[in-house]
């Protein structure tokens, strides 16, 4: 009998040790980098998601490190060189293919159907696989005042019937001739860098050109310097030559120029919409981009989450991303920082992007008109080459020469990198 009791106790003791060992197992810490240092609202929302995720399971704990947005890419690149990447990386949409190609990122492994309802601009594809996904997107529109357009007999365009290129140009001339504005149009010359390809290349695309030949991703020849591109360049140059838009601009003027009435129309993003709404209320209009023949298009893809290829816990990193993609979090980010939620169901939960909301049109713009910047590792170089060409053309350079130079720069880079994986 005693031996039976001892046996039972021994079994119980072993079970207790096992159970105790299991229950005492510490969750694995996953490191996560995010670009929003200094933005308290973003930080609060993100920390809320992390807290919810940590509480929802016992396997993983997320440790957040925030970086300033301006230098985030450089920090990640340096960390990659040092082999010091985190498990979860925040990545800007157009930059993602470069990081995937360089081996910083691993393809995502999300539950089936997770991305079914997502805006195309919020999904980062490379090599036919999803490498990143965003909780939001951003969109640009022509900011205008109904009273100004009506007073000058200018048709108010719609998503279905945007201005044609001729209509848009004629509207600019009409508005300039009123003498009420310093300039008819503020394209945003105060902003440099990514603003150029994000905001101006859709206009180029609307002329029928593009930044690169998307059928091969091996050259920009005849695409960025063909007839359509030259037509864009000549129109673009004429905006400044005819005094319809300011060639130079400081940041303060960009922020206040339209609101203060120095510009009749402004090419700006949804992030600036609430300030303009506050100034003009119902008089404010957000209009689709003009259609120069190739369609009315805008840029797409904002910040997204990806998983580091060097992460030893990719399953945990994917679990967090899948968790963060819930509509309530998409809506929280949208309400907090004003960006477009990545799903229509989340949009319906927001103040501004819900049907009838003040910024509803931006969701539709993203859904219907967004064109991704070329998803290629060459993009970083393409963006620089295009920015230089657009700036040179605005400053009066020969259009064909400026575009040829951009094409040469882009093609040389692609060749030097053996096609970045394209073309076999």
């Amino acid at each position: 009998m005693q031996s039976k009791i001892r046996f039972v106790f021994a079994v119980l003791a072993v079970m207790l040790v096992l159970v105790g060992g299991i229950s005492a197992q510490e969750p694995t810490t996953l490191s996560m980098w995010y670009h929003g240092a200094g933005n308290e609202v973003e930080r609060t929302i993100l920390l809320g998601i992390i807290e919810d995720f940590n509480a929802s399971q016992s396997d993983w704990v997320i440790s957040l490190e925030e970086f300033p947005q301006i230098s985030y890419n450089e920090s990640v690149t340096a960390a990659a060189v040092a082999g010091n990447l985190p498990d979860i990386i925040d990545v800007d949409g157009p930059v993602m293919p470069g990081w995937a190609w360089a081996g910083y990122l691993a393809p995502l492994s999300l539950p089936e159907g997770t991305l079914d309802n997502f805006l195309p601009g919020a999904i980062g594809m490379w090599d036919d696989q999803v490498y990143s996904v965003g909780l939001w997107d951003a969109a640009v529109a022509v900011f205008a005042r109904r009273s100004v357009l009506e007073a000058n007999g200018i048709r108010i365009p719609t998503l279905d019937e945007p201005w044609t290129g001729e209509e848009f140009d004629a509207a600019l001339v009409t508005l300039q001739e009123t003498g009420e504005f310093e300039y008819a149009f503020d394209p945003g010359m105060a902003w440099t860098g990514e603003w150029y390809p994000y905001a101006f290349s859709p206009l180029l695309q609307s002329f029928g050109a593009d930044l690169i030949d998307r059928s091969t991703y091996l050259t920009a020849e005849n695409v960025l310097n063909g007839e359509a591109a030259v037509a864009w360049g000549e129109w673009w140059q004429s905006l400044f030559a005819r005094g319809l838009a300011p060639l130079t601009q400081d940041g303060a003027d960009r922020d206040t120029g339209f609101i203060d009435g120095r510009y009749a129309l402004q090419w700006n993003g949804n992030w600036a919409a609430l300030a303009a709404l506050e100034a003009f209320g119902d008089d404010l209009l957000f209009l689709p981009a003009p259609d120069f023949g190739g369609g009315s298009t805008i840029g797409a893809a904002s910040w997204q989450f990806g998983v580091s290829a060097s992460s030893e816990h990719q399953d945990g990193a994917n679990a967090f991303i899948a968790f963060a993609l819930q509509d309530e979090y998409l809506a929280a980010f949208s309400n907090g920082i004003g960006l477009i939620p990545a799903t229509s169901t989340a949009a319906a939960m927001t103040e501004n992007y819900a049907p009838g909301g003040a910024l509803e049109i931006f969701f539709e713009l993203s859904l219907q008109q967004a064109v991704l910047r070329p998803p290629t590792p060459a993009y970083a170089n393409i963006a620089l080459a295009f920015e230089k060409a657009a700036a040179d053309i605005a400053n009066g350079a020969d259009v064909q020469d400026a575009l040829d130079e951009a094409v040469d720069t882009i093609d040389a880079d692609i060749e030097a990198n053996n096609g970045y994986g394209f073309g076999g």
Partner: protein
Amino acid sequence: MSAQPVRPPHHNWYVLGNYALLIILAFVFVFPIVFMVVSSLKPDLQLLRDTSSLNAFLPIGDISLNNYTAAFERAPIGTFIFNSVVVTTVTVVVGLVINSMAAYSFAVLRWRGKNTILSIVIATFIIPFEAIAIPLLLIVNSLPWIGADGIQIGWLNSLHVQIIPFLVSAFQIFLFYQFFRDLPTELVEAARIDGASLFQIYYRVIVPISGPVFATAAILRFLDMWNQYLWPLMVVQSERYRPVMVGLQYFFQLDIAWGEVMAYLSLVTIPVLILYLSLQRAFISSIATTGIKG
């Protein structure tokens, strides 16, 4: 009683013109600082609108310390300033000792190969830091360090990774070398005859008469280190070790909070101004004697 010398009538105009020019130049240099401090007291919209008039330099309108409060809420400014103060102070103080001793060796001592090595040190001027940043990153990432957790490999995310690579400065060595080389050799010879050791000559003879060059080297190094940006960006991923210039970027969001930017810049400029004003006399004296134009 002797008669006062008679000055030519144009002399007064010359003095007046001189002063007028100096006052204009003073305004040119002072106005940006005045603009920064005044703007730090204004709300963003007023700040931006005032830039188109002289109001930009006047503390008028809706004046408050709100930007300072908001800046402290947005970023751990105290941590950034503390990190920069530690990194800068240690680098400047230790660097002054190391580099001045190296220069002393080049300028005063006699040893084989001295000129060749000095030439090599000076030649490193031409290599921009950006060119060695990646190799340096790989090196510091593979070096051991004994810390609170024992021996660990890699210096990333620390204060010492921002200090040690910058202790030795070819420019500082050259600066000290130029100054030491022009000192009267009799001083060193006399000390030798009196039986002073090499270190005693450095410490008791050279250093006490080299105040201006030490001040110059300190100010220039201080500015370099206080404004460090690229290196900490590469080697520091943790907010805990970030310096002030990386911290500045916390304020550049989609909608830039210009008032907070100005408040932050005012805060981080104060230590630089204090150091410069306290060493100003020696700094100017050094520029006059070494021919270094800062």
